[in-house]
């Protein structure tokens, strides 16, 4: 009975999402009469450009309002529970400053963030500033190529418009499209998601904002993640499938409100605008909320077995402390529970390295490229924030151990 009801509600949700995707083109958020898909450097600095950023401002304001509202409701709700209400003030207060004892920034994080920022800026604005764009070669990240001035095309457009691809292009172009997309997916896997995708950057930024504000997030359990699985697969079907059913996935895709809008183009936003608000709110409370259902990410993930980037585990070194699982934005539980296999790469893994960063046991987890560990778990790194700053007592000073890993901060004395 209960089970049936659960199934029924899942079917209803999926049907609702399908309907929403198919009808998304009829839900306008911000429309223009004429489309302008390219821009150049002069326009880029015109006042007109600022006006075209308006939809973005609306999205951000709406998201901020929604976040405030959610915090407020949560607070009201908790105040009914006397024990929890006591700490309510602590929960959502914007405490200033860093927590003492936070672990030091590792070289890996610096690299990941800089690559993400630089690549996002490059792909979105590169075409405008360099004055040329690369056509033909497509990279599978969610940076909307509706912006024709993008440095490079993203595969998603044609994945969502397969009939166009086959109708308008010759065999070589088609082969080049699939070839480049698959090659990127094979070589980089979801490193694309963790290091390159601008949508990923946007979500990581709002997550960072939440951390700075010291507002608590939503904790998702394994059961919650499981509920997302059918949604993911549905979206994977709908992304290429919507056009065949008279819809258009791009009217649903939140990324339409990123690259084209901040480049100052005139692109009508339909449900995408609302979707982007949802994504901002969602990923504020739950890191990388959109990535957990992103169809493009999942398609790349399907190639994960062949990608040279792996998450490696030394099963006995692990203490099942669960820190990696708590930290993982994709809710991959296997990294913490696995006790036999040494390869714990999951198709959902975006190679963000958060698990390695939080793992307190030397060498228990590592991010490896082609068999070589490039980011290794280290106790020393995890407790680095607690080092006595005046006295500078260091690990195994005389042991000379701790070869400098890519973390740059040594792999613990060994």
């Amino acid at each position, binding site marked *: 009975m209960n089970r049936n009801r659960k199934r029924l509600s899942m079917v209803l949700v999926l049907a609702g999402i399908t309907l929403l995707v198919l009808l998304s083109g009829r839900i306008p958020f911000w429309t223009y009469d004429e489309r302008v898909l390219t821009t150049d450097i002069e326009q880029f600095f015109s006042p007109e450009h600022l006006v075209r950023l308006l939809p973005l401002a609306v999205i951000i304001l709406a998201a901020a309002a929604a976040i405030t509202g959610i915090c407020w409701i949560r607070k009201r709700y908790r105040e009914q529970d006397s024990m929890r209400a006591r700490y309510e003030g602590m929960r959502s207060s914007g*405490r200033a400053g860093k927590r003492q004892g936070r672990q030091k920034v590792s070289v890996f994080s610096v690299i990941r963030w800089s690559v993400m920022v630089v690549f996002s800026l490059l792909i979105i604005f590169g075409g405008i500033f360099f004055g040329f764009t690369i056509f033909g070669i497509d990279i599978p990240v969610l940076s909307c190529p509706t912006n024709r001035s993008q440095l490079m095309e993203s595969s998603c457009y044609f994945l969502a418009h397969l009939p166009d691809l086959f109708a308008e292009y010759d065999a070589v172009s088609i082969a080049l499209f699939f070839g480049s997309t698959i090659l990127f997916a094979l070589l980089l896997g979801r490193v694309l998601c963790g290091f390159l995708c601008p949508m990923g950057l946007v979500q990581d930024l709002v997550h960072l904002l939440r951390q700075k504000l010291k507002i608590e997030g939503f904790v998702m*359990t394994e059961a919650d993640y499981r509920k997302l699985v059918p949604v993911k697969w549905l979206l994977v079907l709908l992304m290429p499938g919507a056009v065949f059913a008279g819809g258009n996935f791009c009217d649903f895709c939140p990324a339409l409100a990123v690259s084209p809008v901040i480049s100052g183009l005139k692109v009508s936003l339909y449900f995408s605008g609302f979707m982007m608000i949802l994504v901002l709110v969602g990923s504020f409370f739950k890191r990388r909320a959109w990535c957990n259902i992103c169809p493009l990410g999942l398609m790349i993930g399907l190639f994960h077995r062949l990608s040279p980037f792996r998450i490696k585990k030394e099963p006995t070194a692990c203490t099942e*402390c669960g820190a990696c699982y708590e*930290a993982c934005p994709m809710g991959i539980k296997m990294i913490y529970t696995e006790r036999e296999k040494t390869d714990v790469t999951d198709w959902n893994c975006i190679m963000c390295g958060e698990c390695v960063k939080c793992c307190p046991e030397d060498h228990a987890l590592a991010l490896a490229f082609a068999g070589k560990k490039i980011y290794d778990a280290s106790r020393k790194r995890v*407790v680095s924030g607690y080092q006595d700053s005046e006295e500078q007592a260091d690990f195994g000073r005389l042991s000379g151990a701790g070869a400098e890993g890519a973390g740059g901060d040594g792999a613990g004395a060994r």
Partner: protein
Amino acid sequence: MMGTGRKTGKTGKSGIEERFASRFLAKQEKTSAKYLRRVEELGEMPEALAPFLDTLRRVYVDMALPDALRGKTLIGTYCVMAPQELVYAAGAVPVKLCSGNYTAFSVGDGNAPRDACPLVKAVEGFCETGLMPIYRDCALMAVPITCDCKKKIAGMLAARSRVFPLQVPAGRDDGDITQYVEELYRFAGILEDVTGSEISWETLASGMRQVGRAQYELSRFLAWKKARHGLMWGTHILAVMHAASYLPADVWASSMRRLNDELEAKGEGSGRPASRKRPRLMITGSPVIFPNIKVPLLIEELGGILAADETCMGERGMSDPAVVVDESFDGMMRALANRAVRPCSCPTFADNTERIYRIRQMVRDYDVQGVVYHVLRGCLVYDFEYQLVEEVLGEMGIPVIRLESDYNEEDVEQLKIRLEAFIELIKFRA
């Protein structure tokens, strides 16, 4: 909350009571002093070990509070699962009250059922007599309910002091963590009531920093110990860890820093007790708590070395750091709950296979040649897991010996004979 208790009446003692008290004290001081002497007689003591031994002496022989605890609000805790960070956040200092005391045990033996575990009997004994200042002066006792004995002791203690029983989940899944987070919120509330000071984001962060300092130094020590086998006598390390029960974390950390510095300065070679030839043993099983350190002492007096310690008063108790992934107040609470429950290889959890992996890893890390499985008479949960540990170690070709003992010295001769044979066996195999 289990009721506020009356303090043990100290007024109007009858003559009998007084005589009992002085006999109790004399006996307890004698045993503790003897064990401390044996610890010292092992020799090759780093200089920086002194403050740790002094702390134990102060608490058990002088029966007084260590200076660092004077004037502080003390919160008694009975297990690593009561997060010390929270206690510091409330402006108090946690002390670990799990006891290994023979004399107190003999008092508690009369009140608790015969099959109850000696640890619990000893705790009962101390509270009963009210003679140990650390037990007497605790403003609150936090008792994680990890087994039946602990549950009952929580009830018995409630007659004498304020008690907060922490419900420990039986598993470690997502729901269990959520449940334990709730429990910690409740604990935080009680702590605020008892100490009268508020727990805030800032105080919790500084509480975490306080414990973090200690963990930093311990991690440093362990890294060094893994790299240099036989760095110190295992019994000396035990003393260091047990002293942590009676010292504020920052005080302990600075003593620990001096010890680390000394060991590092010494570097290779000189003054290390462990030559390769000593059989390298590991102890696991029921808690080994000062002054009940007869088993580790015997191991080292009989020619072995205690190379690794998987009991919870040892290195394991403090070594897992709380990893904060969400910088909010709730995030820190969650990190504490997570750290208390998930990496803890205590057999109170229904599924505890992680302990097996930990033992395997420690055998590898410390190059262990034999394992001593310590069972306190009446400690069922640990005894349950013996079979599996024996099986796994058997596969690895590591001999195990199961030693059952109680809190008295009657079984010492028998333990000695068995340990001697075990150590000989390892020498022979090597």
